């Protein structure tokens, strides 16, 4: 017993806010990780899809006989095999089409022994089309004389949303200044490095196992089932490691039911994987929009109203894209204190590619508008924008007109931190004064901010998560969680939280989260929700396990559970840290006693948020957060090239959980936002994509990435795990308008249609210079 008394005390230390390695990083860095794209099953066939390659047409003749005869071909499917298998939000999609409505429409699919044979078979399929007049802009589709693309959608009208608060006419009349502009956010796409891929296999009981990149395994079953004519319960979803998702895998897209239909027909596993060109053409886009926005304010700078009339290019089918008004209206009404709001949005069917969800969902587009109008209004009022923003910033305890409750609101702190760190106000004045002086290179600084849900978003009936946690006889912990890992790092967060609560080494925690037959319910990786929701679920489960362990410890040690704690793999006295028993030993004692017990707990966490609802008046997220970006740029006024010199970020993160993961999410989110702002652009000509390759669709590369100065504001969210808020969409949302505002500061050019690509900028500057005397 003397030895025990001499055991050194284990000090209390927290992992919260530390830098934690991603558990899967070593295998990824050594090339060992088997992504879905790397997988092959015995007997597996390869599926390939024949795309229409034209935007709107009737299929006059389709002959697959030669393809079927090709040796090595096991199945050929066409639209005839998919009649009635409607899926999607408004059931307007089928896995294989009988009418062509956009370039990438899937006309036929082949399963063959190899990709090469499948590709050859596609070439043998004869199709004759009768091209039909198309609609390539929502404005055209909305015209009274526009051709009707679908019988059951009069006026080509897809989804419609509206929210109104207060008397806009009165607010307009009472405004001293009004800005009125039309913004045109464009088509961009996710560009996951791992191309879209699914492997499907039916067992002889008729149950489908689908290996997929899906980032929402449970609702996915519900969405996939109608595309196959089977029950959601007959689908098992397995999520192998994926090469990125960013929202692109938040819905069912036709290649997935196609893989399953081919598997059903052949009785063998079938893998469908896109080439990069197919990925560009056939995977979802970010939702483009035409946003007519008006914002007003008083002479003293107080905002009076904001209205937005939004037209959305629905594309040929309805996925998440045209649902973005749900978030657009939250930003329109809640980005600063907006007393009067009028928002309406109408999606119009066209023959363009269609949009899914994409990191920043709707808010990238809206903030592009609101943050530029804030900058414009500040100049009209003649206030330093920073002062103007702070004046209108909402504070803790306030509501937005839609009843989003800003319990902890750190917008003003974010503004102050970013403004100070970047010396924003001084530089903005200085650069503006130099704007019209001679000189080819001009410096500019721009500030933008936004609000986003940071505690999930209750757009489904549930926004919850199930967690199962077990601690075995060796004190190894397994967490079985619904939370999907798509590269964002929830594995590190869950590991960290378990280690924090149970005092075990990080390496002793295993996460199982990739099989819908094992892991419990979750609504998926979206709405910046996973750290918040899964973090809470994990913490609650771990605390239940801890309570059970400490209860037993009380029994074995004769010391009150409240005075005990788990630390460093031991049960310790909380006050002094004296280790009393090794955790694994205690667990074995619990297991092998007369009334044996195992530590295995379950938890279901449902955040305290309200369903979105048809009125859109609800506190739909359990938390909200703000971020402010200040971009400093140098513009080559002749070539129009923008070099981003530095970005200052201040974001309300609630509480830092895994510092390294948090930084990584902000850096990566900004890179996507920079691409949106500067270079990425799907060049569509009458519905056909002209640049389906990385050669001409330009992602940000390493030399273009500027240094970032990051400031984390910790508002300590009462509802979040350890005070944390969701963080990963705001970085993508805020950066683009900060650059646009900086461009204006540098050159006097204000552009409403992204990207701010060199040619567009050069032309605008040339035009502006010509218009000056």
């Amino acid at each position, binding site marked *: 017993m003397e030895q025990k008394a001499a055991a050194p005390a284990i000090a209390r230390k927290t992992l919260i806010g530390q830098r934690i390695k991603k558990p899967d990083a070593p295998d990824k860095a050594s090339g060992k990780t088997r992504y879905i794209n790397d997988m092959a099953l015995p007997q597996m066939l390869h599926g390939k899809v024949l795309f229409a390659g034209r935007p709107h047409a009737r299929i006059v003749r389709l002959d697959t006989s030669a393809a079927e005869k090709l040796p090595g071909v096991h199945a050929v499917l066409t639209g005839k095999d998919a009649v009635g298998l409607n899926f999607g939000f408004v059931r307007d999609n089928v896995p294989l089409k009988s009418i062509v409505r956009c370039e990438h429409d899937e006309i036929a699919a082949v399963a063959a022994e190899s990709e090469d044979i499948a590709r050859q078979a596609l070439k043998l399929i004869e199709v004759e089309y009768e091209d039909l007049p198309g609609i390539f802009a929502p404005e055209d589709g909305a015209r009274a004389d526009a051709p009707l693309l679908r019988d059951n959608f009069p006026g080509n009208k897809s989804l419609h949303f509206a929210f109104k608060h207060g008397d806009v006419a009165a607010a307009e009349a009472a405004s001293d200044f009004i800005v009125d502009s039309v913004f045109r956010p464009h088509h961009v796409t996710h560009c996951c490095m791992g191309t879209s891929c699914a492997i499907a296999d039916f067992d002889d009981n008729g149950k489908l196992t689908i290996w997929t990149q899906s980032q929402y395994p449970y609702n996915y079953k519900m969405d996939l089932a109608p595309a196959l004519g089977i029950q959601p319960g007959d689908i098992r979803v397995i999520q192998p490691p994926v090469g990125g998702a960013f929202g692109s895998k938040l819905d069912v897209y036709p290649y997935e039911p196609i893989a399953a239909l081919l598997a059903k027909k052949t009785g063998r596993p079938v893998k469908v994987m896109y080439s990069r060109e197919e990925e560009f053409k056939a995977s979802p886009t970010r939702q483009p929009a035409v946003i007519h926005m008006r914002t007003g304010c008083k002479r003293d700078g107080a905002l009076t109203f904001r209205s937005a009339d939004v037209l959305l290019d629905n594309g040929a089918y309805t996925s998440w894209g045209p649902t973005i008004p749900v978030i657009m209206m939250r930003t329109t009404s809640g980005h600063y204190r907006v007393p009067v709001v009028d928002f309406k949005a109408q999606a119009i069917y066209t023959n363009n590619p269609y949009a899914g969800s994409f990191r920043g969902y709707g808010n990238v587009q809206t903030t592009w508008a609101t943050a530029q109008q804030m900058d414009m209004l500040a100049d009209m009022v003649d206030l330093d924008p920073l002062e103007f923003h702070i004046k209108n910033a909402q504070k803790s305890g306030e509501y937005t007109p839609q009843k989003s409750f800003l319990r902890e609101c750190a917008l003003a702190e974010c503004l102050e931190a970013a403004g100070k760190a970047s010396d924003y106000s001084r530089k903005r004045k200085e650069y503006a004064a130099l704007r019209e002086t001679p000189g080819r290179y001009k410096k500019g600084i721009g500030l933008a901010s936004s609000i986003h849900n940071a505690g999930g978003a209750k757009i489904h009936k549930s926004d919850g998560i199930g967690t199962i946690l077990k601690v075995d006889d060796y004190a190894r912990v397994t967490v079985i969680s619904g939370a999907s890992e798509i590269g964002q790092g929830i594995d590190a967060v869950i590991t960290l939280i378990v280690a924090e609560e149970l005092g075990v080494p990080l390496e002793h925690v295993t996460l199982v989260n990739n099989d819908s037959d094992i892991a419990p319910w979750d609504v998926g990786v979206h709405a910046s929700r996973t750290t918040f929701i899964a973090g809470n679920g994990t913490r609650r489960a771990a605390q239940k396990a801890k309570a059970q362990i400490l209860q037993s410890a009380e029994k074995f040690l004769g010391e009150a559970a409240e005075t005990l704690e788990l630390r460093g793999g031991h049960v310790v006295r909380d006050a002094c840290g004296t280790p009393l028993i090794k955790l694994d030993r205690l667990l074995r004692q619990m297991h092998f006693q007369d009334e044996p017990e195992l530590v295995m707990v379950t938890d279901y966490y449902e955040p305290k948020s309200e369903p979105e609802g048809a009125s859109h008046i609800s506190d739909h997220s359990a938390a909200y957060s703000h971020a402010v970006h200040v971009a400093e740029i140098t513009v080559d006024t*002749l*070539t129009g090239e923008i070099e981003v010199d530095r970005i200052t970020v201040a974001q309300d993160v609630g509480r830092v959980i895994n510092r390294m993961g948090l930084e990584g999410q902000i850096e990566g989110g900004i890179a996507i936002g920079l691409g949106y702002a500067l270079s990425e652009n799907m060049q569509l000509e009458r519905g056909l994509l*002209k640049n389906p390759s990385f050669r001409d669709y330009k992602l940000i590369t390493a*030399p*273009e990435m500027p240094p970032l100065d990051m400031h984390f504001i910790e508002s300590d969210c009462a509802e979040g795990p350890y005070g944390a808020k969701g963080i990963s969409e705001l970085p993508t949302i805020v950066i683009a308008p900060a650059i646009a505002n900086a461009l204006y500061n540098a050159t006097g050019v204000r552009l409403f249609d992204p990207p701010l690509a*060199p*040619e567009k900028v050069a032309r605008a500057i040339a035009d502006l210079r010509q218009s000056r005397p």
Partner: protein
Amino acid sequence: MQEITTYLAPRSLNEAAQAMAAGDVTVFCGGTDLAPQTESGARQHSACLMNIRRIEGLGGIEEKDGDIRIGALTTVSEIRRHPLIARVAPILAEAAEHFASDQIRNVASIGGNICNASPAGDMINPLLVLDAAVELASWADGAVQKRSVPLENFFTSPRRTVKRAEELLTTVVFRKPAADFVGRFRKSGPRPALEISTVSVGVGGNFSAGVLRNARVAFGSVAPTPLRARHVEVVLEGRRLDADVIGAALVAARDDARPIDDVRASAWYRSHLVEVFLEEALHHVRGN
């Protein structure tokens, strides 16, 4: 799809030239152009595929009799880092600096970049400024025969050259520039590299006492082929490089550049960039 019945990886020029004399051969070195072009279906293989990367004596950079000779197999990376090029023709190293990516520079050959005959070929522009010629080898009368073609006359249209099917480009040659030679290369794009040039402009000549002699100007991506800007050269030749002459050169550039609209840029922007880059390059030369 064409079946490939023969794959050759000759070690000697004789072998290669004989194979090319015997029939249609698809030639490649690094494969960085051929691979994507054939994968996308933009180009077909011949029945005979020949990798010339192993031919001895077709690589390397040397100075001989006042000429700089660059073997066709020399990679862009070698040019980028070569001390002789850095000393006598830094304009070529400058273009190599902005060529594709490290992984492509490590394998893409100078000969391949020329034979690919893209209007945007980045190594071609500085070679036009250096007034380079290419040597073409073919097999006739039991021996390798060679002829030399000025690079300026080599290109006929996009992806087409005067090189006959049985000819192999072996060497790029240019006179070693005199000590007062000044050259400048500029291509567009916010990225330092990994960018198909929207426009490239090269300017060179012997510059002393404020006067540019043997002025040579080349444009890329503004016409069906890379070209020498002869109108600009006439304006510049032997003149004191002052603001008036530079202004006149910019006006003359409109007669040389005949750009089109495409997915990468409009004709307006290309013409605009030609003027911007030409002015920039001429000011650099003047400041030298």
